[in-house]
């Protein structure tokens, strides 16, 4: 499995969990799910983009 796939899977599971934990109705659950899932994916991508110029230790 690629790193991206594992991250997506983790985001999917966590988003589903909190959607059902915090909301009782389908519409609210879908909204929370999308908010969390998109937020985690976009946030991770943004963080990766910010860290891109910084090399891994020992790879220089």
């Amino acid at each position, binding site marked *: *499995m690629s*790193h991206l796939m*594992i991250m997506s*899977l*983790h985001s999917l*599971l*966590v988003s*589903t*969990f909190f959607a*059902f*934990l*915090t*909301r*009782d*109705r389908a*519409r*609210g659950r879908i*909204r929370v799910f999308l908010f969390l899932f998109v937020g985690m994916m976009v946030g991770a991508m943004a963080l990766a983009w910010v860290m891109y110029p910084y090399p891994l230790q020992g790879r220089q």
Partner: protein
Amino acid sequence: MATTATASEAGREADVVVSTRSPWVPCLLAWAIPGAGHLLLRRTTAGLVFMAVVMTTFGFGLALNGTVYAMDPEQPLSYLSTLANAGLGPLDAWARVRTFGDLRYRMPDSRTDRVAREQILTRVRQRYGAATHSYGRTFLLTAGLMNLLLVLDVFDYCIGRKPRRTPQSQPAESSS
């Protein structure tokens, strides 16, 4: 003995069913089997989804060569990690035997039992070679923390802190 009261409030508030019962059995069940506490409280859909999500997270944690933590006085944060892992109940025991070879919650002290400590660390380090080891650890921690939240959620339902809305009512969306 369960008691139920229905409170109807004016305005946009819907009928709210407040059920109170002893939280011990549901919480213990929720800890032992992810989602079972909600099933006992007749929150069937949520219970089944919680069960599937937590079990899947745990399964992927093991499949990705994840290991659980044991309390280590030399690493104070390991206490919190062990608590998070232990949130999974019997599933954590299984992962613990798989990681350490026995049901271990505490690492041997390096000053008094150095040999046993090295044996355990050698066994754990064998999994470090897998590229997905860190992800597996994270999945196992996440599964444990999810289940701890489920236990707290069941507790809130039992003491009436988190009321259930009746199916007939359709109030504005709210966190319940």
